[in-house]
């Protein structure tokens, strides 16, 4: 019976190839959208995730960066810097704003950096240099590519004109590309003085972030103090809500589609083998064994399809970012296993209905086929 199960899958080569390719294609789509979704969700918190201070300090009532506005008096930063267990305090000024180039308008994060603030600036430049003078900016290299911007081009942030001096990598997501400008320029834009937006606090070695959070809360009024983990979680859930719903919907639609195709494929595999299944039944194979065999066949076919999809995902999908630089793909083993498990459940379910038919089929029909 096992031999038949195995061999009959491979004997109808045309059918097998059709089924396998159909399944492979839908899984490629699912894996693709899942990867886009994961990539995008990692990317929306890319800036705070890379800064990774032990503790974030911001205006009380504010808990994240995305779509937020925060002001903290500068003397509070000095006060925190003097607390025991604090290694350094890095202030940044921050604004959500529209960036206007000749080609388009983009919503972006603008981060204002004090002179010689390397701690909170871009972590990798792919072209140009860091900002050194007033009205200079570093923009994400992906943004430059899709907006067709080059070094020395000018862009508007609110009503100020900035010159692009550098391009940074890893700072783009469709929901929030991050641009860096001099602190004083952003101060002008915000019409503020003597304030910061966020304080990135690094702890001394041996001081636990939680302890430091409590210490700052005790000593400084009217600020919100969070560990890095808390801050990132807040920011992540906020950003996901705002930016990537569409991708989630696409992933769900594709998953449902894949489920239908896998289910339908295993259904039609059984229907096509009905004659042989009747013979096998007449010869005295028990229904439970026929059922197992049919489900096994569905699993074999789905595995092959899924295998092809995984191969494709690992070796071909990464190249799509060459064509579409604004896409950030993240393939993870755990999400592949996740999709794989769902595939098998669906394959089994898809085979169950026809298998049930077959197990109820009159063995006598072998005399008529």
């Amino acid at each position, binding site marked *: 019976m096992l031999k038949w199960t195995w061999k009959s899958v491979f004997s109808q080569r045309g059918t097998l190839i059709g089924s396998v390719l159909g399944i492979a294609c839908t899984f490629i789509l699912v894996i693709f959208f899942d990867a886009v979704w994961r990539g995008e969700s990692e990317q929306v918190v890319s800036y705070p995730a890379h800064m990774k201070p032990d503790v974030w300090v911001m205006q009380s009532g504010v808990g994240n960066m995305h779509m937020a506005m925060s002001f903290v008096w500068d003397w509070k930063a000095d006060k925190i810097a003097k607390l025991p267990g604090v290694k350094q305090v890095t202030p940044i000024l921050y604004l959500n704003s529209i960036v206007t180039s000749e080609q388009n308008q983009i919503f972006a994060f603008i981060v204002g950096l004090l002179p010689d603030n390397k701690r909170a600036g871009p972590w990798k430049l792919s072209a140009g240099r860091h900002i050194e003078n007033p009205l200079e900016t570093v923009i994400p290299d992906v943004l430059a590519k899709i907006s067709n911007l080059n070094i020395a081009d000018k862009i508007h942030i609110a009503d100020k004109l900035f010159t692009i001096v550098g391009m940074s990598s890893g700072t783009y997501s469709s929901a929030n590309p991050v641009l860096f400008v001099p602190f004083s320029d952003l101060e002008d834009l915000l019409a503020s003085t003597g304030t910061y937006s966020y304080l990135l606090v690094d702890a001394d070695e041996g001081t636990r972030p939680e302890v430091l959070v409590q210490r700052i809360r005790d000593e400084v009024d009217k600020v919100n103090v969070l560990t890095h983990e808390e801050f990132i979680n807040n920011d992540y859930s906020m950003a996901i809500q705002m930016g990537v719903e569409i991708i989630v919907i696409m992933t769900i639609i594709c998953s449902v589609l894949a489920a239908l195709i896998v289910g339908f494929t295993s259904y039609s595999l059984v229907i096509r083998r009905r004659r042989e299944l009747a013979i096998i039944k007449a*010869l005295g194979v028990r229904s439970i064994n026929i059922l197992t065999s049919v489900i096994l066949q569905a699993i074999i076919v789905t595995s092959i399809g899924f295998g092809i999809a995984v191969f494709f995902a690992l070796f071909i999908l990464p190249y799509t970012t060459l064509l579409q630089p604004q896409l950030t793909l993240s393939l993870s083993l755990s999400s592949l296993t996740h999709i794989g498990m769902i595939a098998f459940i669906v394959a089994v379910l898809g085979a169950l209905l026809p298998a049930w038919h077959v197990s109820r089929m009159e063995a006598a029909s*072998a005399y008529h086929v």
Partner: protein
Amino acid sequence: MSIIKASNLTKSFGHDHTAIKAVDNVSISIQAAEIILIMGPSGSGKTTLLSLLGGLLTPSQGNIEIDGVNITALKETALPAIRALKIGFIFQSFNLLDALSVEDNILFPARLRPGGINKARSRASKLIEQLGLQKRSKALPQSLSGGEKQRVAIARALINEPKVILADEPTGNLDSQTGQDVMMLLHDIAHEQGCSVVVVTHDPRIEDIADRILWLEDGKLSDRKHDQHKWCRDPVCGMRIDEWTAEYTLQYSGIKYSFCSQKCLDKFNDHPGQYLSNP
């Protein structure tokens, strides 16, 4: 000793006023090593009766004993084992498993038998030799001729040393010579192994090998008198055909012709003139 004992078998299909009694109060007893032919017009219930005897259908009424076991009293789940071990099935359309080689087709029922496949292997190679299939044992069914396919099916039916072989028109898809050969093989092997053979057929030439001929009409069984033939000749191969039971018939220019097989009928259809001018 009777291997199969069926009493008052009735099988109806459908419900109430649309119900058809395909088999109507049939009692039959088959002895060890007996060869029985069941004949009768199309739709008379032959296939249904065979299916009942083989445990492929459950009767609406009546009892069937196979080798001393009352199978009508068994649970549905116990029937496959009876089929696998006690009965060999042969079908008109051969019903080989396309994906398996000749050898694996023959061995297929052996895997359903406790005690395993190893003993069966030597039996299989003996059967393969006996049926002249040595050169084809690794071939796939699609590359076999009709006669070869039916020989494989016979070997498959015999592999578990069944008490009974049930064959539904085993020669129906074969030309008359091949059909004759296949029946002779079936006859010889059955006698050697001492198993009973029940054959549904339209082929009157098989009558010679039968120990007993049963006549089924409208689901009812009767002994058949030998003068109940209406003989005519197959215009293609010249074989003697009983017009009453002929499966393959054709109206041509107002005259009814009967054929021994689909093959002869097809030949006739291709060039009717050739066979009519030369009777």
